């Protein structure tokens, strides 16, 4: 992550614009979709009809609020990227292109549902009510995780790929033990979501989580954002059978959803969470999407992927399609879109200011919270450190 090779993703212009050998934007016939790339509602098909009921409450107001979330989340992400470029953050993992996958999933969750993210889930964090400012601390180096997971039921970011899949599974087993599955009370029944990417599906912990959750029938939804790139490695370096198809081998239903379609992502996640809360066990969702930017600000995607591929996915942009839909439905005009953009500007300004003002923690704090109860070695070294520091002040 500390590569000094830095190429701004938004200006990357590799020489080749040859189209890819195959259309990797095609999610295939199994992919659930409700809103196509042009912003048209997809007719009811055999594939999406089981999920249509989960959109019955989606009225104009809901569509507008989903759009607002998408725009604000993209702006949070752009600000994180900019702050890194300005030297305020050490690193930023961009979610550009994955807004709908994350907002759809995040908005499907109820307050009592618990989320276990990787480190790119800024959109889920937003939907769970985590202040974006709190996400910045770890990337600025002032902490390793700057929020209380239990305040918003959104766990800290997990950097080691796949670890969190097991945490979610265990947490869901705890929910089962608490008797909060299948009570029929929508305000009590609880589910857990675990987020990872296509690269994560190769990890042992990911596969063990599928085994454990299937055996325990625990209320967990695994949400794989297949953004097609695990840093520089494409899907064909990660798996032969796509994640949603592999789920069946674990005894878990798997579904592929258009991750650039916020409505489909919302519907499919709602269905899976309902199953989980109702005691019908885990589900694996593969959100078919694309990482439009670099892996992180330290990455240089021009070294391993061609611009033509990115160009193809640009046409499937999750925000453009919803905007077109809103316009077509008469739900948004220039004034309304302008107001959302202005709100995004204000949010970005607030984040920027808060980040710039985020103080360096006093060094003595690095000795805190290593243990809950006192540990003599930590105490001793903390005291020695304090004395050492003080010896300079006296001079």
């Amino acid at each position: 992550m500390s590569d000094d090779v830095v190429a701004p993703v938004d200006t990357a212009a590799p020489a080749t614009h040859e189209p890819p050998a195959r259309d990797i934007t095609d999610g295939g016939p199994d992919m659930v979709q409700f809103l196509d790339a042009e912003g048209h509602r997809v007719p009811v098909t055999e594939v999406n009809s089981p999920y249509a009921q989960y959109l019955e409450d989606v009225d104009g107001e809901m569509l507008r609020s989903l759009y607002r979330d998408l725009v604000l989340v993209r702006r949070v992400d752009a600000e994180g990227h900019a702050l890194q470029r300005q030297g305020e953050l050490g690193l930023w993992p961009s979610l550009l292109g994955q807004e709908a996958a994350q907002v759809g999933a995040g908005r499907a969750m109820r307050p009592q549902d618990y989320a276990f993210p990787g480190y790119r889930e800024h959109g889920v964090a937003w939907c769970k009510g985590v202040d974006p400012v709190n996400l910045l601390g770890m990337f600025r180096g002032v902490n390793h995780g700057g929020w209380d997971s239990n305040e918003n039921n959104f766990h800290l970011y997990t950097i080691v790929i796949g670890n969190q899949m097991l945490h979610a599974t265990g947490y869901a087993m705890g929910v089962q033990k608490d008797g909060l599955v299948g009570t029929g009370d929508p305000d009590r029944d609880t589910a857990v979501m675990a987020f990872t990417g296509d690269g994560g599906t190769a990890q042992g912990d990911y596969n063990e989580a599928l085994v454990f959750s299937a055996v325990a029938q625990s209320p967990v939804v695994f949400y794989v954002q297949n953004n097609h790139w695990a840093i520089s490695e494409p899907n064909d370096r990660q798996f032969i059978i796509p994640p949603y198809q592999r789920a069946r081998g674990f005894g878990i239903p798997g579904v592929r959803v258009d991750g650039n379609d916020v409505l489909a992502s919302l519907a499919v996640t709602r269905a899976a969470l309902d199953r989980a809360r109702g005691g019908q066990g885990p589900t694996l969702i593969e959100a078919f999407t694309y990482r439009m930017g670099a892996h992180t600000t330290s990455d240089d995607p021009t070294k391993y992927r061609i611009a033509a591929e990115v160009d193809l996915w640009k046409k499937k942009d999750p925000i453009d399609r919803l905007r077109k839909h809103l316009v077509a439905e008469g739900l948004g005009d220039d004034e309304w879109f302008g107001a959302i953009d202005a709100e995004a500007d204000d949010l970005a300004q607030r984040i920027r200011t808060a980040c710039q003002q985020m103080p360096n923690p006093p060094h003595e704090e690095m000795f805190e919270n290593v243990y809950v109860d006192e540990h003599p070695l930590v105490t001793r070294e903390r005291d020695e450190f304090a004395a050492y520091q003080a010896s300079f002040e006296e001079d």
Partner: protein
Amino acid sequence: MTTSAGAQTQAAPAGGQPQEQAPQKMTIAKALNAGMRRAMEADPKVVLLGEDIGKLGGVFRITEGLQKDFGEDRVLDTPLAESGIMGTAVGLALRGYRPVVEIQFDGFVYPAFDQIVSQVAKMHYRSLGHLKLPMVIRIPYGGGIGAVEHHSESNEAYFAHTAGLRVVTAATAEDAYWMMQQAIASDDPVVFYEPKRRYHERGEILLGERAPYGLHDAVVRTQGTDVTLLAYGPMVKTAMIAAQAAETEGRSVEVIDLRSLSPLDVPTILQSVEKTGRAVVVHEAQTYLGMGSELAALIQQEAFYHLEAPVIRVGGYNIPYPPSRHEEVFLPDLDRILDAVDRSLAY
């Protein structure tokens, strides 16, 4: 063995009267079981996870009868995947449970190493203290049982090296009983090493309400004045036998059972070494960067002017754990400890 179930019940009085006057004789294995039983009775959030720990009671029968008495909801037979066990235990702890994880053998903990080091040890720190992981990771360790590869290792240094973990080991039935309860009650994650070759050795336990020692106290097992033997786990008994043998030759050896490897009970260690001026560290683990290295560094740094001899380490040779036909000479024994004592006293 048939009366032990009764003994376990008495070991865990559910609000009943403690039996201070009547020490019970019990194996280390049964004492561990009794300690877990009592912790489970005291706190419904205590759950056990592991491979074969339910109906079978574990391959060493340490959890025997617990699933029958507490149900499958609290004693979980997991799929055979150590990282999965550890990672789900983390999740359970995050949900408010107190998981006690059994790793079947020392050499099988490595698939869970990532979860232990990256998650278990660091979650409290990462969360700025918001999250706690009150977990116990039980590991039967050490050799001397004629086992095949991966069943005889002493890998405590890996975990003692890792900030955020507490690492303890019991050498007596009494410690097994009490330290297990203390470890489960700890709000920090505790790696609990169990001396598997001593599982069936018996000791007396006072089943009172209070533990005789703190979880991280070192204990002087044999008083002496000439040299300090620092040992833990399965080597404590060997060290005590060595002390007895030395006594017949007129040498007074003090044996300290460290009990806790992280943190170390530094005052107790230094007090003894300052008295004797000599220290020999004994463990089964390979010596290179083992606990003995840390103890030697600690002692030379903190008790330099008291020392009459360099700190000597007696441990496994720095090779992979050998085929069991070699373990008789690979593991420290009476003679190697006495040899080290002689060398220390020769300075």
